[in-house]
């Protein structure tokens, strides 16, 4: 008979090996799925995981895209991971991302057409503020009224999507082109343009911000008292309370930090690669970042690696949309499977399988 035994210490080897194993298993399962749908499995997997970087045909287009797609994922995931460690489940980062973009773009559009060095820094502040404020809704409802933050933060994504549509069609619509939905193109407004810092690399201010966020989070989680409190609250909530950690304060900090970072990601996107406030502006970075956080083991360094991998699948998803006529959302199948496999494999991190002699045991 098979018996499960809880390990005294989670296995370190499996903790590191599992994300890699999960990726391999996802590729295999994804290939089987494509074959079942009548598409060439090898070509599809190649297109999603390899071609964005190594193809001669699209490489020159998609290599710079890697940083562009990865930066928002890392920026959002770093914030989410801190909350997840403390068992605070903000799953509405997509909404915070949208609000950050709207606040940032709002500042730019208010100043248009004045040029000035101070405009971009103001947009950064506004973007962080937008995400922060949107995240404060579930945070304050949780601390004041004990409302479930999972449901509230998620439901607010749908609200944010509708505000985005209302803005693109109404208040922020480009007055010079009233026939089209969408705001002015911020890439054509020098003071607000989040331009590439080095041409053809995809390196923009959002990438710099992601790097700073990773370092900041790493130091905070390993060296600072707050990081210790976060870990304590997640692993031993009772001990944390006796130790003087205020759960309410932690909820506000974790949600606020994640919200501000998601807002920043949205602002850097709308002022750079995205370019304008459009109805289709949000492409699911906020949800993918949840997977990045888990795949990266809630660890800032791991999140960087996981961010690059999922950024890659984003580009691969776009390529397969063009080349294989797959719907854009099908990349979510991969993301869902990746998380399934990772969670399932983690089983052996915490448990040991023992074979015992059934009848006598």
């Amino acid at each position, binding site marked *: 008979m098979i018996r499960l035994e809880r390990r005294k210490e989670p296995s370190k080897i499996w903790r590191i090996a599992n994300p890699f194993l999960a990726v391999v298993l996802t590729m295999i399962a994804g290939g089987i799925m494509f074959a079942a749908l009548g598409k060439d499995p090898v070509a599809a997997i190649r297109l999603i995981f390899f071609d964005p970087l190594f193809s001669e045909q699209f490489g020159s287009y998609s290599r710079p895209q890697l940083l562009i797609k990865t930066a928002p994922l890392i920026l959002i995931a770093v914030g989410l991971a801190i909350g997840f460690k403390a068992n605070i489940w903000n799953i509405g980062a997509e909404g915070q991302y949208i609000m950050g973009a709207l606040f940032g773009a709002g500042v730019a559009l208010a100043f248009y057409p004045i040029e000035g060095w101070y405009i971009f820094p103001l947009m950064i502040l506004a973007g962080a503020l937008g995400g922060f404020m949107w995240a404060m809704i579930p945070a304050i409802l949780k601390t004041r009224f004990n409302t479930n933050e999972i449901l509230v933060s998620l439901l607010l994504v749908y609200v944010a999507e509708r505000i985005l549509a209302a803005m693109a069609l109404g208040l922020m619509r480009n007055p010079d082109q009233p026939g089209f939905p969408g705001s002015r193109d911020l890439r054509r407004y020098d003071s607000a343009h989040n331009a590439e810092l080095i041409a053809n690399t995809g390196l923009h201010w959002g990438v710099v911000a992601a790097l700073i966020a990773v370092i900041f989070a790493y130091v905070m989680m390993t060296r600072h008292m707050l990081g210790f409190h976060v870990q304590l609250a997640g692993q031993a909530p009772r001990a944390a309370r006796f130790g003087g950690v205020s759960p309410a304060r932690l909820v506000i900090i974790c949600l606020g930090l994640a919200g501000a970072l998601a807002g920043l990601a949205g602002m850097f996107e709308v002022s750079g690669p995205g370019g304008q406030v459009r109805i289709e502006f949000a492409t699911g970075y906020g949800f993918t970042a949840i997977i990045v956080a888990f795949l990266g083991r809630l660890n800032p360094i791991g999140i960087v690696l996981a961010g690059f991998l999922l950024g890659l699948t984003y580009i691969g998803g776009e390529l397969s949309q063009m080349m294989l006529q797959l*719907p854009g959302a*099908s990349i979510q199948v991969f993301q869902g499977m990746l998380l399934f496999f990772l969670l399932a494999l983690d089983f052996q991190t915490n448990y040991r399988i023992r074979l015992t002699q059934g009848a006598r045991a």
Partner: protein
Amino acid sequence: MILGSINPAVLLAALMVAATPILLAAIGELVVEKSGVLNLGVEGMMIMGACLGFIIAVNSGSPLLGFVGAALAGMVLAALFALLTQVLMTNHVATGLALTLFGLGLTALLGQQYVGITPPRTPRLDLGPLAQIPFFGRAFFRHDIVVYLTIALVGAVWWFLKYSRAGMILRAVGENHDAAHALGYHVKRVRLMAILFGGACAGLGGAYLSLIRVAGWTEGMTVGAGWIALALVVFASWRPWRALAGAYLFGGVVVLQLNLQAAGVRIPVEYLSMSPYLITILVLVLISSGKARASLNAPGSLNKPFHASS
């Protein structure tokens, strides 16, 4: 003036139709949570039901087969959730999210060729003279059979949880799994069955959306209905009849908002269409705070991992 143009009988009829999908999903999730498991993948199971139910109904020409297929599709996804959370002891929140992402992606892929197709019609239940009663006939007695079966299901779940022996075991498992285990009940087996039931219900709710309420398939068509169903369970304080009341209340908001849109109220459509989500949040706040808060009624072992190691 604008409100005057809305016929209350039509409004009531539309409300019952709008409430049915979330009520189906919510009553399933209610049973799941009563057994001590929180399945956050309702949205994913619903969209699977919506998509597969639609595909099967279109290809077979039978809405009934579509509903059966939808229930099975929801159960398959639920079985995956059960395998991960009950056997492999994974984190419930993360697993539920994975279920939702997976469901949304897979259905986008599977349903690609089915956008813009009209499903076979589900016939209205012929209630004879009842349907001819002025006002009431129009409001309550001219629906498809699923609307009535859903109400019957609420009653059945209420009876099951309150009076049947199996229902009491399920509640015992949800309230205190260690005690239930000590008494010799199979905690995991009970939970597995509850999760499967929840998956079937969510699948049916999704199929109701694609086959009857919307009568068409579009990518991501559940737009948060599964999450609203989860909120509804909290609102209902885990009581079946209150879930029914909550779903109809919510259906009323949705229908009223749609009618206001159609009547051309001078509020942009985008703001009107966010009202269901905002009202759900408001209701969650009201129900979660204060002395009479719903959480006092929550199953004792809800969302706590169970591992019979000792």
